[in-house]
């Protein structure tokens, strides 16, 4: 679905200063239909990376391909944006209309989709995110989680093949986070949409197919959640925490217990600890 080759990006520097590389040679291949979580502390390059996936940013070195299309080719921009939709951090900055359904219809209208087709897409997109009851509501009266789901519906209405959530849960409360997260998982499962979730909440990575940890503009770790989270020391050195489940298992192992480190969920962790007790 997405591919990067020696991707480099430097933000424009102030006069007389050398530009700092926000991304320094990233090689990635993201499979169609996968659910990928990208972690990293602030300034690690994770958001810069995400913005390359639908050509919001263009590489200053190397290449990015979306389904084989080079994002640097301006003629392909519309095709690329149609395939990869993006949801940003602040729900209040991405609502453009006064009525929920108009907001969701904004992108397909701009893509020149016929009116009856727009109607179908808007209704379907709102149903997918569980916001069909709010079709005629005013967006500013919704909660943060609801606004983000409307923003996601706006992206779904373009019928993209991939959705990038750039810290889309960072400003939400636990309930709002859960709403957005379960919506993303459902889209992935039921519609086969590739999801790339950028976050610094470790527990949002528990159910991902793949976790990529960014550090200093490079891919520092890449693997299944189990493979990544069991490397406790390495994660800590990168300024990240591990889920409490793994931390508990890690501490018990330090005390000589024979427990696996990869029991990520609360239930799996409790099973592992209970088994070691016997």
């Amino acid at each position, binding site marked *: 679905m997405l591919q990067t080759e020696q991707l480099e990006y430097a933000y424009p520097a102030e006069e007389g200063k050398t530009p700092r590389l926000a991304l320094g040679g990233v090689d990635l291949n993201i499979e169609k239909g996968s659910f990928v979580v990208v972690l990293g*502390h*602030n*300034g690690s390059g994770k958001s810069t990376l995400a913005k390359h996936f639908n050509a919001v940013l263009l590489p200053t070195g190397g290449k990015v391909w979306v389904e084989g299309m080079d994002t640097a080719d301006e003629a392909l921009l519309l095709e690329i944006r149609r395939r990869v939709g993006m949801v940003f*951090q602040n729900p209040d900055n991405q609502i453009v209309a006064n009525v929920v359904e108009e907001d969701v219809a904004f992108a397909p209208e701009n893509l020149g989709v016929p009116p009856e087709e727009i109607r179908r897409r808007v209704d379907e997109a709102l149903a997918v995110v569980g916001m069909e009851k709010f079709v005629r509501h005013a967006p500013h009266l919704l*909660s*943060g*989680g609801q606004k983000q789901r409307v923003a996601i519906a706006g992206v779904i209405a373009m019928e993209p093949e991939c959705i990038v959530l750039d*810290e889309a849960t*960072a*400003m939400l*409360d*636990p*309930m*709002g986070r859960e709403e957005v997260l379960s919506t993303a998982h459902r889209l992935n499962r039921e519609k086969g949409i590739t999801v790339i979730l950028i976050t*610094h909440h*470790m*527990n949002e990575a528990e159910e991902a197919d793949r976790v990529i940890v960014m550090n200093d503009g490079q891919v520092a770790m890449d693997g299944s959640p189990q493979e990544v989270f069991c490397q406790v020391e390495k994660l800590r050195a990168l*300024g*990240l*925490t591990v*889920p*409490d*489940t793994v*931390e*508990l298992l890690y*501490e*018990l192992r330090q*005390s000589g*217990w024979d427990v696996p480190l990869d029991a990520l969920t*609360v*239930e799996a*962790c*409790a*099973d592992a*600890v*209970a088994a070691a*007790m*016997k």
Partner: protein
Amino acid sequence: MEPILRVEHLTHTYGSGTPFERSAVQDLSFQVEAGEFLGVIGHTGSGKSTLIQHLNGLLRPTSGHIYLDGTDIWAKPKEIRQVRFQVGLVFQYPEYQLFEETVYRDIAFGPTNMGLTPEQVDRAVREAAAFAGLSEELLDKSPFELSGGQKRRVAIAGVIAMDPKVLILDEPTAGLDPEGRERLLANIRAYHQAKGNTILLVSHSMDEIARNVDRILVLKDAHVLMSGTPREVFARAEELESAGLDVPQVTRIARALRDRGLAIDPAVYTTEELTAALLALKKGGSAVC
């Protein structure tokens, strides 16, 4: 001893007399002891923000009273400004509220308005900057040259510089990465220890609250759902979950272990405690209860 803050039957109704009339806080009563570190938690719409805006007089109660050090803060409405110097409120995402040319002047704004002498202001600014974890050389910079995390520290320093009796922080770590969150909380804890004043920490994160505060006030639907030490509150995990709140992951593991027949206190909320409890249990040999 008189509590530093006493809230009695506080009700606030928005849009009174319109079809949108809604009470954001309803008959709320609680008190905060001087020197206490209190966590305030509740999901969006529970009334947290409305409550804290009453504590420094930004909102006026529809009914009920707020006593600061024994005095009703609305006894003399014209002097409400004095209350705002004594109860410092740091809003959510305060980094968007910086406006001065230099970090120094931004922090100095509050103490200058309080009528302190330039020497006193200078001392207050430097002390507050140090508490907020800002180095001296940042003071001459423009706030807009700083990173997001540093800007937030400037905003916090601006409130600390007024040396408030009560400091209220609304979601101070929202949007920071784990390391940034922990560093900022460590600064706040150090400030609390050094000054011994009262702190109210409003947060969505139970983990964050659990690790820092003496007592937790849980709000739900405009009411106080419960209040107590972290241990007392987490012992009622099911109620918290039904109020749409997070329970710390460690508490959920402890509960899952109990479900599997292990004699574990279901109110533990740190990995250190749970590890110690498990080690003791295994050593004791009576693993199954």
